[in-house]
């Protein structure tokens, strides 16, 4: 046990000196079954170009994991591996294991539609359908064949409440979603993802097109959502990664340079390249 955790332990113990306290150092290592996503020896190619090199990483459930790194480092490619979004790209090739909920999503027989329901995605630019607010959220349920109107109504309301959009739109549910502001549209897209009850939410720079107030709302939302979902977020905003994530992984030129608890990465990174990147000395 290091000195920092010793002192933490003393504070937690207060006056009851005999109460055993579990610290990070005394916690037992987790078993593979306890992770939501595991990648082993993952290589990704676009034709001859290798976008990811031998990535080994485990993602805990009910947490926010931030993927950071300069443009072209492979972080978005890695994110899209989890719901097979790269499959649409010509010459895309993958080697190694990608295990989501104990299933290898590239070798086992799985239904892509089901995978994308379980592993939802939110993109950089809000992309609502040119339909009403209500229909945008109900869309996924209808695709799944849900016909129960009462159930759909309830689901639309609860999803919009989860993203704190309900009070802003409850009187205008028939309004076209494209008439909403950028921040509202992004929250609507998150509500659309939540409506089909995913296990994992992937976010590819979800706030880069938003103003600080909308960004703040999305970040607040992430904090609440991680109690129910596993969230993986790609961000170029270092402070956002530091604010919202529990774990951070730094990628550079297709390599996973370092990953660990966000507090560790942002206070005492073990790799010089990580230090240079997060402190802005890179390049």
């Amino acid at each position: 046990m290091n000195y920092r955790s010793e002192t933490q332990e003393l504070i937690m113990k207060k006056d009851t000196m005999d109460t055993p306290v579990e610290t990070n150092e005394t916690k037992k290592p987790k078993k593979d079954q306890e992770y939501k996503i595991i990648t082993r020896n993952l290589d990704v190619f676009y034709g001859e170009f290798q976008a990811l090199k031998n990535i080994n990483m485990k993602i805990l459930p009910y947490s926010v994991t931030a993927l950071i790194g300069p443009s072209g480092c492979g972080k978005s490619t890695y994110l899209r591996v989890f719901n097979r979004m790269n499959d649409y790209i010509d010459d895309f090739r993958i080697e190694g294991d990608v295990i989501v909920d104990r299933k290898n999503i590239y070798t086992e027989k799985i239904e892509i539609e089901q995978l994308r329901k379980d592993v939802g995605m939110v993109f950089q630019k809000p992309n609502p359908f040119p339909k009403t607010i209500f229909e945008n959220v109900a869309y996924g349920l209808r695709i799944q064949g849900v016909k129960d109107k009462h159930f759909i109504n309830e689901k639309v309301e609860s999803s919009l409440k989860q993203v704190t959009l309900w009070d802003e739109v409850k009187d205008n549910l028939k309004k076209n979603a494209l008439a909403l502001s950028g921040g509202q549209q992004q929250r609507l897209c998150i509500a659309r993802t939540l409506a089909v009850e995913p296990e994992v939410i992937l976010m590819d720079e979800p706030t880069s097109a938003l103003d600080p107030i909308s960004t703040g709302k999305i970040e607040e939302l992430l904090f609440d959502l991680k109690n129910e979902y596993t969230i993986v977020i790609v961000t170029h905003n270092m402070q956002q990664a530091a604010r919202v994530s529990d774990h951070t992984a730094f990628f550079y030129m297709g390599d996973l340079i370092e990953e660990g608890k966000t507090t560790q990465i942002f206070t005492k990174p073990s790799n010089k390249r990580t230090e240079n990147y997060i402190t802005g000395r890179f390049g």
Partner: protein
Amino acid sequence: MKPFEYDIENIRILTFEMLDLVKDQIHLTKEALLTSDPELSGEIMRKEKRVNSYEISIDREIEDFLALQAPVASDLRFAMAVLKISSSLERIGDHAYRISSYVFEDDFKITKDIVEILHIPTMFDEIDDMLINITDAFESGDIQLAKRVFKQDKFLNKINKKLPSIVQDYQKKSKKTDVEYLIYLSRIVGKLERCGDMIKNIAEEIIFYYESKVIKHRKKNKQITRKLEKSENN
């Protein structure tokens, strides 16, 4: 150089300037005390205002640096360390100011016979050397140099601990009954010992900055644990 690197450099320069000023204050205080020079003491007291100004300037620079640059990792540790370093330097400056005020305001004159018995010049020299060590350690990142002051601090503590018996012996031999004089002597030695503690704190901050290791209170906490265990066993 990137904009935030200018900020860091600026804070570094201010910190080294403050270190030099405090070193100078200690040097002058020794001279003023040993020669009972009220003019020199007055100069030290005037310079104390500059020491305080440095602390405020560094506080402001770091406040801006944290708010505008949102530093992380070693840059954040640098800012945290410098905040505490400047606060410790200011307190060393305070001690120098207090000792000078005994000469300047209270017309305190130290007698030569007690100076050597109490090792007062040695204490001043040790503090001077400790300040040089931490300045070099902060500049170069030489942790061994920073750790050297821990030993030097122990030496100062030892003198302070022996103070009551030394004063008692002196009182018996010299038959001096001026209690006020003896209180002043105790205060001076106590303040010099506190300067050593402050420099030790600075060394701990330098180690924290360069190695991200927190070492403060470690030994004392162990001592407390041992004492508590001992009393429980009895």
